[in-house]
């Protein structure tokens, strides 16, 4: 018996993908921030980051309509894996050994959850 439909898994993993762009644009926007409130309001990168987060939340809600929260919620952690990639590719942050190990562990964990819900 399938407790969590694959469509729900796909929605939630999609949410994690777009959510990682939220983190990326907040980081880029925050780096260009001045002291004034106006510099927050006119910072299009921050706004784009927030928009990505909101879009990601809509996908997450569509995903958890069906299926198990105990499987779908931990799958959001795939977002960290995407974020590690963008940090390396866009921000030029080093992909250190702990990060690489964490990446592998999160992927293994998500695979185990997938096996557990079948």
């Amino acid at each position: 018996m399938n407790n969590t439909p694959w469509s729900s898994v796909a929605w939630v993993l999609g949410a994690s993908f777009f959510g990682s762009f939220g983190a990326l644009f907040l980081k880029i926007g925050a780096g260009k921030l001045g002291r004034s409130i106006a510099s927050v309001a006119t910072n299009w990168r921050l706004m784009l980051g927030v928009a990505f987060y909101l879009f990601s939340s809509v996908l997450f809600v569509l995903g958890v309509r069906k299926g198990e929260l105990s499987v779908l919620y931990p799958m959001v952690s795939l977002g960290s894996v995407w974020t590690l990639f963008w940090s390396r590719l866009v921000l030029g942050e080093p992909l250190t050994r702990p990060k690489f190990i964490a990446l592998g562990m999160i992927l293994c964990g998500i695979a185990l959850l997938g096996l557990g819900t079948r």
Partner: protein
Amino acid sequence: MSTSTVSLNDQAQQRRSFILVVCCTIIGAAAQVLIKMGASALGPSPTMVQTAMAMLLNPALFAGYSLYGISTILLVLALRHGQLSLLYPVFAMTYVWVTILSVVVFHESMNPYKLAGIAVIVGGIAVLGKGPST
């Protein structure tokens, strides 16, 4: 004398950050339960626009995302003064609370695969906080 005062302040600061993150995980897990409740109550095939509207109009979804916002603010406050490598493993407690609540509130079943999966992800998040040190 002055150094010991500083380290005491440091310790108090760390403890404060620790408590903030624990609160953040409890509120964050409660948020997920409310979001799941609200999402399950949506119609058979809502559009993205309907879903976005429901996040504002459905009480459970709205409450869930409000709590999620509060938990995020608590995490940011904690990270301002606390050490990331110490706080990230604590933050991963959210997964433990969500699992317990899923079983208690939604009567979801547990099996060795799921438990192992959650444990490995919690470990991964904890390792992630280790940051730049190689």
